[in-house]
Structures are given as C-alpha cells and as structure tokens.
C-alpha cells in the first residue's frame, strides 16, 4: 500500500475515535495544545498508549512516590525496566514482577505465557541472566464453571514458556476467591543476576547513534493491549479476543543468549524491551530519558504481515522484540551476533538533537511529536479517595468450635492451604542446576552459580486482610515476605510490588490503594526492604464488582552460606518444637480469629479486622530467628501465616514425614488464630533449654517431634490422612480437565 493511499484511508479524528483510544475530552484538549494542530491517527495512537493508565501511572504515581526506594545496597530503584540490588562479590540481583491479568482471562495459556516472556525481557534487558521465575495467581471459586479451565491454561502457559526458555520456576502462590471469578490475576516475577558494574539502562545518548530493532518480526498482535489493560472489563470483552498475543519462548531463549553475548562487548549504549505499547513506548522512553529526539524509518521494521500501517507498527505488541541504541561503528558486529542466533536485526533509525519523535514511512513523515512536552504533560491525577471503614474485632469466644482434628484436615485439604504440587510439578524448577530449595518451602533458594551463596525469593499477599484493612494488609504482605525469607535463613534485601486493584475512579477503591501504599511503605521502611521495582494493574473489575485488592509483594534475600540454610520439614524424632514471637498481648488475647481461614472457610464468615502487624516486633523476631539459623541452632523453621499455628506445625510434619505431639490446650483461637510475627522451629532435645533460656519471653516450647500423627492430648490426626487431604485437593479439582497447549 502506498503512503498516499494509506493516508487517504486514515479516518478523520472524531470525538468517537478519541474516546475509542481511551482519551478523555480533557486529555484530548492537551494533545491539541501540545501539537497546535489536530493529530493524525498514528499520532493519536501514540498519545493514547503513552497516556494510558498502564504506561503513565496517572492514577497511582502520586502514591507510589511515597514508597521507600533507597538503601545503601540499592543500585537502581523504580523507573527502569527492573530494580537492581547489590548482593556482594561483585554481583547484582535484578528483579521485577508484572501482571498479565486481562490477557490471561481471555486466553489463559497465551496470556500467562506472554506474561512470563514480558517479565523475563524486563530483566535481561538490564544485562542480567534470568535465574528464576515466580508467579502469584488468584482464581475465582474452585467450583465456578470457568475456574478449572483458567487454572489449567495459566499453569500450562507459565510452564510452557519458562520451561522452554530454560529458567526455573521456583515459587509463587495461589488463592481462590469468588470475587476473582470474572477477573483472575496472573502476576509473574523474574529474578536475574548480573555483574554489578555492567548494568544496562534505557537512557539513550549520542546524537546520530543508530537505533536498532532485534528479535521477532512485528505483526498485528495485541494492538491496543495497553489500553485494554487500562479499561474495566465488561461482558462483551470476548470481542476483544483477537488482540491476544502468542508467545514464542524459543525466540525468547535465542534473544536472551544473543543479548547477553552482545552485552559482553561495549556495543550497546542503551537498551529497552518492547513490552506493552511496543515500539511507541520503547523508543519514546529511550529518547525521553536521554533528553534527545529520535527518527524512525518505519518501513525498515521487520514485518510479519503484508499491508501493515505505521499506526499498527507503532502500537503492535508482538512479543520477543528489543530496541537498542548502539555505539557508532558497532552495527556489523552486533548484526553478526543476532544473525548467528537466527534473529532479525534492522537499523531503523537514529538519535537526533531535536527533542522530537519523527516517524517516516517510505520517505514521508507520518508523525512528528515533541517528546518532552508529551512526557511532561502526561496526565497525573489526585483521585478522590475514601478511607476503608474499620472492621470490628471478632471475639474469639463468638466463633463456633469445631473438633480440632476435623478443622485441621479440612483446612489443610482446602483450596487455600492444600499442596500446590500439581502446579509446580508442571514447572521445570530445577533447570540451570542451582535450585537449592525447591517449591514447597517458605522461600525458594537458588544458588549463585559457582558459589556457596544463595538468593532466596518469595511472593506474598493476603487479599482478605487488605480488603478488610488496607494499611494492615499492606504491612502484612511485606511482613510475610520478610518472614518467608527469614525462615530459610536469608537476609531480606528488597521488594518488588504488583498492585492489583479495581477501578481507581471509585473513591472506595482508591482508598484501598492509598491505604495499601501506606502499609507497604511503612513495612518496607521498618524492615529495611526498599521497593526497587513494581507494576500497577487497575480496573480489575467485572460488571462493576472489584477484585479483592491485591498488592502482591515479591521479595528477595541473600544467604551468605548455604550450609546455614533452614528448611521446613521436621528432621528427627524427639526434637523440641518451639514457637518464637508470641507477645504477651497475643497470649492474653488467646488467638486472633478475625479474617482467619478458619472463620472464612469453616464458618463461612469472611469478617472482622485482620490481625495487627507490629513492625518493630516483626523485625526483632526476624533477627532472632535468623540469628538462630545462622548459628546452626535450629533444625527446621517455618513461619506462621494462613491457618495459624497448628497448620504451620502440620506443614512441618508433612514436609518431614514425621509426626509431632503438642503440649497445647486444644483451644480453637490459639490453634487457628492468625496472629502475626511468629515462627515455629525445631531444636535438638539437648539444645532446647539453652535456646529457650536465651530467648526468654519470646519463645515457648509447644511439643516434641515423633510418631506418625499430629497429636494433642489424647487425640491425633494420622499423617497419612493429613497428607491425603493436603495432596488431594488439586488433583481432585483438576482431574480430568483437558490440558491446554
């Protein structure tokens, strides 16, 4: 198609077209002010993606700015493709989490797969070799007609991509709740490792330097994906289906190897993956960060389909593509590397000093936009928000008492606490030969290749706490991540956050967001885990009903000596079982039942204030536990979270294949209350007294390992029964669901 034809067929810009592009009349007026003329369709498309919620963070920016982001070990905080922290010995960990919620609901296999592909690119763009993937998943009720299909497709998609690329998927979390029925969450996290002094950034520099496109060809994939991720879901969203992208993990693997090979040279000035909003946001951001202009010759972009237009090229979300600025004269060498890996390579433009983005198509200018004004004028909203009303504290005595044996089996075999083996066995969690702690424990541990040190990693959030009290829930998500890292003996370093919320234009939802940010921020500050990267996904609603607010936290920590790593399972019979971290207030209160799984799943009451999180206490207990692990004084360690103390102990028993006799009164609130800031450890019998006397009031012995059951008083649940319930849930749910591929 000739340029003229193409421009002739371009529609005139009407208010409808503006609205279809997700721009408000106000925002469109700003476009007119900046340009001093009417934009053409390509230009309008560029504005629409750059100013979408997804790319501009217009509703969330104000609050994200309040999060703590610095520490002496932070090399790069938010603002780049991923966060970077110094992990010693000249190495840096590079990590981030990102959502792919809407695409995964529409096409679970490809949606989840391309989510993994996208987050991997964010990490290797910065020069890091990806060493681990994690995923935090939220599905609707297990018995909802769509759930099985979604679980099957999402899990197969995550595995299909990660397994092929050869990066182990080592951890994550899964929740079910009916309020995710129409809007599931798929949050994917990648952790990579790079030499600390060879991190690559997206800031362009050097007027005249070539702008180079590498990777897969551009097709009409996911055009409008970024705007789709910013608009509320409606029942007719089925029609948006053809916009889902198909991932090609094989090409991604080649892209990783080729990029890392080129990164070992001095050819690259700046590099940026093409994620949401593809070529538009990658070129725009590189130029904008460098305070430069950019000129792109769009007809040089490698294309997969005939008849593509500049509009489509700029908005396509085809996967497995990267944009780079090279040192002059390095083009041939770079091209040879990409050709060796069978990847497309094209010089599509150059940097200029005009401060403008100029796009040409067969010799004609098809867009000409000022970069700084567009970036600076990006809308930023201070949306009205309403604080979340406080929930009453649920009185323990008001909660129905079920026999503890039945309650334990029901919880351990229920949707939220049952074993996730069915999921993680579909993920290659061992490839790369460094997985020291596989899925199933508190945090996964991946050895730093060729050393005796390890990175620990986890994802955590308890959405029912957040919904009931976003400040407490925000704190708790960080505190639980801190605890999971601590429980393996790691020193927590930093977090990435993935904020999944409903429609921010509703004050109640915005209030949840504001509260969660406050809680996260307080916890990150108190626990010395700055936020180094993150992602915001808003408008997670179906027919006006919002998901439970879900600020997922991904966190990493460092283990300086893998010989001093703790695991969950009981190790030997006759050892002392000790709970660490109970406060006098907890003892006096008898156990916090509000928002507990016991109350929700067994009594059908999702209510009350969530357990408070005392950050100072959290830190003190965490340091104590880490000290014990690092001193080699405990033989197993597990934090107490969902389900409470008895569930934690039962998980340790199952993991070790060894029973336990507890010296506790079988009081419901004490056994199943979800008071925070607690760990359970085991200590060899002869060393128990010393540990107890060292810890004083912070620790209490609650039992002894041994036997083949979890026993309290005269009653016992055989481990075999517990295991059958625990391992049985997922296979029973998913049994004959056909596998997506």
């Amino acid at each position, binding site marked *: 198609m000739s340029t003229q034809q193409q421009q002739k067929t371009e529609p005139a810009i009407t208010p409808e077209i503006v609205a279809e592009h997700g721009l408000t009349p106000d925002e469109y007026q700003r476009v007119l002010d900046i340009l001093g003329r009417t934009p053409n369709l390509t230009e309008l498309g560029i504005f629409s993606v750059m100013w979408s919620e997804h790319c501009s963070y217009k509703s969330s920016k104000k609050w994200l700015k309040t999060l703590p982001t610095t520490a002496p070990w932070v090399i790069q905080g938010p603002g780049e493709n991923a966060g970077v922290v110094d992990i010693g010995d000249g190495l840096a960990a590079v990590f981030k989490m990102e959502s792919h919620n809407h695409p995964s609901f529409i096409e679970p296999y490809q949606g989840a797969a391309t989510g993994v592909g996208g987050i991997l690119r964010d990490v290797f763009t910065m020069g890091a070799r990806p060493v681990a993937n994690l995923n935090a998943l939220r599905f609707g009720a297990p018995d909802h007609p769509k759930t099985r299909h979604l679980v099957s497709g999402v899990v197969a998609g995550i595995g299909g991509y990660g397994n092929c690329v050869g990066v182990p998927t080592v951890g994550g979390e899964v929740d079910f709740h009916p309020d995710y029925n129409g809007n599931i969450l798929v949050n994917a996290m990648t952790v990579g490792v790079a030499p600390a002094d060879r991190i690559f950034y997206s800031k362009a520099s050097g007027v005249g330097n070539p702008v180079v496109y590498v990777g897969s060809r551009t097709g009409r994939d996911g055009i409008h994906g970024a705007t789709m991720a910013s608009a509320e879901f409606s029942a007719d969203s089925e029609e948006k289906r053809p916009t889902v992208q198909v991932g*090609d993990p094989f090409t991604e*693997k080649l892209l990783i190897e080729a990029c890392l090979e080129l990164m070992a040279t001095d050819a690259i000035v700046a590099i940026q993956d093409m994620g949401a909003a593809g070529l538009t946001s990658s070129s725009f951001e590189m130029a904008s960060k460098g305070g430069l202009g950019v000129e792109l010759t769009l007809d040089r972009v490698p294309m997969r389909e005939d008849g593509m237009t500049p509009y489509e090229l700029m908005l396509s979300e085809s996967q497995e593509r990267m944009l780079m600025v090279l040192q002059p004269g390095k083009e041939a060498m770079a091209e040879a590397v990409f050709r060796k890996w*069978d990847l497309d390579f094209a010089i599509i433009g150059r940097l200029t000093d005009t401060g403008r983005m100029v796009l040409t198509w067969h010799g004609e200018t098809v867009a000409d936009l000022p970069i700084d004004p567009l970036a600076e004028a990006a809308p930023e909203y201070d949306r009205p928000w309403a604080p979340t009303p406080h929930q009453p504290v649920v009185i323990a005595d008001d909660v129905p008492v079920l026999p503890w044996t039945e309650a334990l089996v029901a919880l351990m075999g229920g949707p939220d606490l049952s074993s996730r083996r069915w999921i993680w*066995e*579909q993920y290659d969690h*061992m*490839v790369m030969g460094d997985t020291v702690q596989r899925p199933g424990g508190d945090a996964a541990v991946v050895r730093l290749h060729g050393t005796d040190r390890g990175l620990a990693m986890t994802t955590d959030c308890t959405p029912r706490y957040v919904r009931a009290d976003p400040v407490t829930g925000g704190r708790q998500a960080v505190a639980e991540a801190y605890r999971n890292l601590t429980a393996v003996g790691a020193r927590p370093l930093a977090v990435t956050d993935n904020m999944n919320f409903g429609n921010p234009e509703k004050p109640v939802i915005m209030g949840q967001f504001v509260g969660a940010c406050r809680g996260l921020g307080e916890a990150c500050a108190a626990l010395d885990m700055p936020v180094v990267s993150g992602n915001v996904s808003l408008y997670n609603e179906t027919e006006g009903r919002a998901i439970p607010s879900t600020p997922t936290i991904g966190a990493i920590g460092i283990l300086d000596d893998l010989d001093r790593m703790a695991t969950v399972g009981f190790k030997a019979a006759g050892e002392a079982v000790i709970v660490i971290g109970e406060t006098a207030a907890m003892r006096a209160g008898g156990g916090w039942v509000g928002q507990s799984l016991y109350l929700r799943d067994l009594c059908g009451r999702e209510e009350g204030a969530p357990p408070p999180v005392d950050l100072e206490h959290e830190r003190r207990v965490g340091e104590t536990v880490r000290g014990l692990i690092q001193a080699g004084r405990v033989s197993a360690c597990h934090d107490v979270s969902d389900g409470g103390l008895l569930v934690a102990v039962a998980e340790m028993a199952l993991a070790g294949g060894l029973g336990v006799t507890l010296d506790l009164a079988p009081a419901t609130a004490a056994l199943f209350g979800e008071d925070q800031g607690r760990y359970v450890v085991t200590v060899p019998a002869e060393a128990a007294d010393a540990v107890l006397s060292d810890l004083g009031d912070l620790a209490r012995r609650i039992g002894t390992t041994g036997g083949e059951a979890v026993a309290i008083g005269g009653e016992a649940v055989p481990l075999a029964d517990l295991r059958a319930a625990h391992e049985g849930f997922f296979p029973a749910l998913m049994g004959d669901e056909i596998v997506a591929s």
Partner: protein
Amino acid sequence: MNSAVIVFPGSNCDRDVAVTLADVTGRAPVMHWHGDPDLPDDLDLIVIPGGFSHGDYLRCGAMAAHAAAMAGVRRAADRGVAILGICNGFQVLCESHLLPGALMRNRDLRFICRDVHLRVETTDTMFTAGYAPAQVIRLPIAHHDGNYVADLPTQCALEDEDRIVFRYCDAGGKVTETANPNGSLDNIAGILSESRTVLGLMPHPERLADPRLGGTDGRALFVSVMEALS
C-alpha cells in the same frame, strides 16, 4: 577424559551437564555449536543435553537431528565414541535413528518435573557399571514428551539384548503402572544402542550429582563412564 556437549539453539541443560562433567572428570567439556560438522577427534564422550532444541516445534528433537553437528556425532558413534543423550538429547538420538523408537507426549499430556525412582536394569554398560545390579536410584525428570514407544520387534530386541538400562519403579524397586510417570512402554526410561555405546534416557542424572542439590545418585553415571574410558 575428553568430552563435548552439543549446543543447539534452545538447548538449556547444556551448562548443567557441563558443570557436572567438569566436576567429575576434572576437565571442562568442549561446548560444540550445532552448526559445526567437525567435532574434535580426540573425544571420549559426547553429550546431547536437555532443553528445547528448536523450541521442540514440530516434534521434539526432529530439527536438531538434522544439525550439521549430528553428522559428526554419527561418525563418532560409528567409531565407538560414547554418546549420552539426556531428555531432549534422548529425543534427538531417536529422531536421528541412533536409537530405536520414539518419544511421544506424556500420557497425561502435562509437563512433569519431579524426582522419580529408577531401577538399574543392566550394569553391563560403561554408563552403569558403577551401580549395583537392580539398584534403585532417584533422579529428576522434567519433560513433556517422555512417553517411549517402539514396535514389538524393537521391544523384543531391546529386552533380549539387555539394552533397557533404566525402568521407572517405586521406591522399593517394583516396576508398576503407578510408578510410570509418562506412559512409557514397559516403564522404559533409558535404552542403549546395539553397540551399547549410545545411551538415551529421559531422567536427568546431572541434576542430582551434587549433594547441595539434594542427592548424588546421578553422579555414578558420569563416574562410571569416566572410569570405563580412562
């Protein structure tokens, strides 16, 4: 002992097995690019590693079987050089007809990554001489297409010629249907060529060859080869 690991686009256990080889033999293997037909001629062992060569598109191992380097592997095999195909490597060897049969999609259609028990069915090979006869070992599998099939004459030949090296079994060494993770014919997890110098297996011995990773049952395989060849 001199070894080489063939690297295809999409191989992803190449480094893992190289680490094990370097550790066991004290000498790093040559990492040999798939497009190069000329393998070093002093090799004692060639490993075709796990992964997703060419994305496992079309059929696992089908495209890799035609790589230039595979011509070199074939020549080396004819000379009696030991060849070890692990997981995707096993699939490549079947597609190259260096081993008989084929590997199809797992019975339950899902990718499976877990430790399995294997019974050592023969120790009459340089790969398993270091194990005890009928020893039960634990190794990880991680595959989508490990369901071994072969026609009846092939199956009989494998059996009669003592060329079945590993079978999936339970912890006690019993070869049962429930211990079969992928539907493989006769619980077959690994087989030999007629010459007994080419071994293909689905489980990953290199993944449990380091105590830090939770076990060392795979290490004996590499030690056996090294002892047989040096």
